[in-house]
């Protein structure tokens, strides 16, 4: 049984050449004066109960339209959407609030629109007030609110009752960091209790942290779906695709998927991780010095080359990344056939676990400008900890500790 099933959804917007053409088609339903712009093309997917799915894609890919169709705000041109259970959706910025009414009055209005009764709203009011933290403003007109306050109030109301399916469109990126964290916590909590999630976000970390699966939309079609880190790698590559690069994903020997892309003017030909004595390793002891050695071949002459690497943990979260631009070691004026060997030396001051290294050869600081070659998971290595005391987390901080017994007089640090 599926909780949300989307079958062959197509959405077309009608484009009229003029207002008169529009009037004509309104008055005579049979007359067709418009051309059609297809924004969603044969989208199908299913979400099982309790699953969390992220939708990613560049602006205009059709993400918001898809969510609007699923939330029944607008209708699809063809296809079928089946949703079961109680659904709550947080869509876009901007409220359904009336500026002249108090926050409280608006809560009643909007609350009834989302299907709560007055009694239920009465009952939920304290918890909504409490969660939104807008204090005495609750009895002030909404026009006096800051945009952050409006968002907080809207979020608090929409999530006052745990829905079976929560649809979130970019809502995680609004409000201050504190509230973002708080709302994210609530979403996590819902998820733990079994709420199915459908999230649109440009925030890679948010999608990776919370989703079991990601769907990549491009030009109104699903171009990739699967594990979030793989889809997101593909998405990052797609961002660079605007320069007609080739993106390919291939399955590595260990079953994981590697994404490569680039214009191909410069090619990363090999990469190894070496220990202090210069021998190749793929298991590293915490804190020991290592070198990342990358060989690069210029296929065509290029004006400038910046090589960067990014270490990611097993969840795909970035741990550390830098490039030769920032290290002030760019290479200028490469001729075809030139080979360069880059060597990055650093202590492996990261916690135990599996890490991957992504590499990018580009013209400038960012791979979005001119991306010659970019390889995700170019190298996988493990960090083990057999020497130091066992610690938690990805950062190895050199912690010194001391303990002393203190008297009551200087016990309070905050007053010092």
């Amino acid at each position: 049984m599926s909780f949300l099933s989307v079958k062959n959804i197509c959405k077309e917007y009608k484009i009229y050449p003029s207002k008169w053409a529009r009037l004509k088609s309104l008055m005579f339903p049979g007359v067709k004066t418009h051309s059609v712009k297809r924004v969603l093309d044969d989208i199908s997917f299913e979400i099982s109960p309790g699953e969390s799915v992220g939708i990613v894609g560049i602006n205009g890919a059709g993400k918001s339209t898809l969510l609007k169709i699923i939330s029944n705000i607008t209708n699809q041109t063809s296809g079928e959407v089946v949703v079961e259970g109680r659904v709550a959706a947080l869509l876009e910025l901007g409220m359904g609030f009336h500026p002249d009414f108090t926050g409280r009055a608006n809560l009643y209005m909007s609350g009834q629109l989302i299907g709560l009764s007055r009694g239920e709203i009465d009952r939920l009011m304290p918890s909504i007030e409490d969660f939104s933290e807008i204090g005495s403003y609750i009895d002030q007109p909404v026009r006096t609110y800051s945009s952050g306050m409006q968002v907080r109030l809207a979020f608090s109301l929409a999530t006052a009752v745990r829905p079976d399916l929560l649809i979130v469109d970019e809502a995680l990126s609004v409000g201050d960091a504190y509230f973002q964290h708080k709302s994210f916590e609530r979403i996590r909590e819902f998820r733990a209790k079994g709420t199915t999630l459908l999230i649109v976000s440009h925030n890679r970390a948010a999608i990776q942290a919370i989703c079991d699966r990601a769907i990549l939309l491009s030009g109104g079609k699903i171009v990739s779906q699967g594990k979030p880190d793989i889809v997101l790698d593909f998405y990052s590559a797609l961002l660079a695709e605007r320069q007609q690069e080739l993106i390919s994903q291939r399955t590595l020997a260990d079953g994981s998927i590697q994404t490569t892309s680039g214009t191909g003017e410069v090619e990363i030909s090999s990469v190894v991780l070496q220990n202090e004595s210069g021998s190749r390793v793929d298991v590293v002891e915490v804190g020991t010095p290592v070198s990342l050695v990358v060989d690069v071949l210029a296929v065509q002459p290029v004006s400038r080359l910046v090589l960067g690497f990014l270490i990611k943990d097993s969840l795909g979260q970035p741990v550390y990344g830098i490039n030769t631009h920032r290290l002030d070691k760019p290479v200028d004026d490469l001729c075809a056939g030139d080979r360069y060997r880059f060597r990055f030396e650093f202590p492996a001051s990261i916690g135990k676990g599996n890490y991957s290294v992504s590499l990018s050869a580009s013209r400038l600081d960012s791979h979005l400008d001119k991306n010659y070659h970019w390889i995700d998971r170019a190298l996988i290595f493990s960090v083990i900890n057999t020497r130091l005391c066992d610690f938690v987390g990805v950062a190895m901080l050199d912690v010194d500790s001391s303990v002393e017994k203190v008297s009551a007089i200087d016990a309070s640090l905050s007053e010092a």
Partner: protein
Amino acid sequence: MSFVDVSNTGTVDQLRRGYGFVSSSVTREFNVKYKTSVLGALWAVLNPMALVFIYTIVFTHLMKARLPGVSDVFGYGIYLCAGILCWSCFSEVVSRGQNIFIENANIIKKLSFPKLCLPVVVGAGAVISFVVLLGVIIVFALMSGFSLGFELLFIVPVLLLQLLLSLSIALFLGVLNVFIRDVGQLTGVVLQFWFWLTPIVYPVSILPPEIRTLVDLNPLTAIVSSYQNMFLYSRAPDWGSLLPVALITLLFMFVALSFYKRNSTDMVDSL
């Protein structure tokens, strides 16, 4: 950010949500209209009363108008009141209704809810103003020594018919206005003509025959006359003249609803 509930719940829940929304919207609207001003609900009365006052002065004193068969000085005042009571409700529904979807674009684009509730809110708001004004007119009539009969109770079916007619027009114009914004401007102009083509300020009897046919074709003529009959002559409405109006209303309702249904998705996409 906003919220949606697309629960596949039954019609009962849909109705409950619709009812809740309409009732709280009307209360909200009433509050914003009257609670934020010093004179409050008086404004619901003052505007039409000013109209009645001006026309009464101009016509009874300056132009010496008399109604056939009514010798009373206040007769014309009551006649005007009856017409304006009907007209202000009708024009409020039409002129506010034609803008209702544009005005609420904000929630239409972000919420899934029965959109037909929006014109209903306009209708309910107009009924409230209607009741307030009706009360004032009754007091005004009784104070001037006018006797009002039980026939006044026929206001209920006539008002209902008038509401259905005006809501159908409002719904049609409301949808059309989303696509072609000229509708808003045009409605104002048309309502001006409509007002003068309805026997509100003048009795039908003073009209030359060629204009009279035009006025008789106006569905509002029969409705306004019903009010005037009830107030002025304590007569029940002329049901025979209301029958064609009822048929026209049914036709308008059908046209407006099917127009709405056909265009509601495009409307959301165009807002």
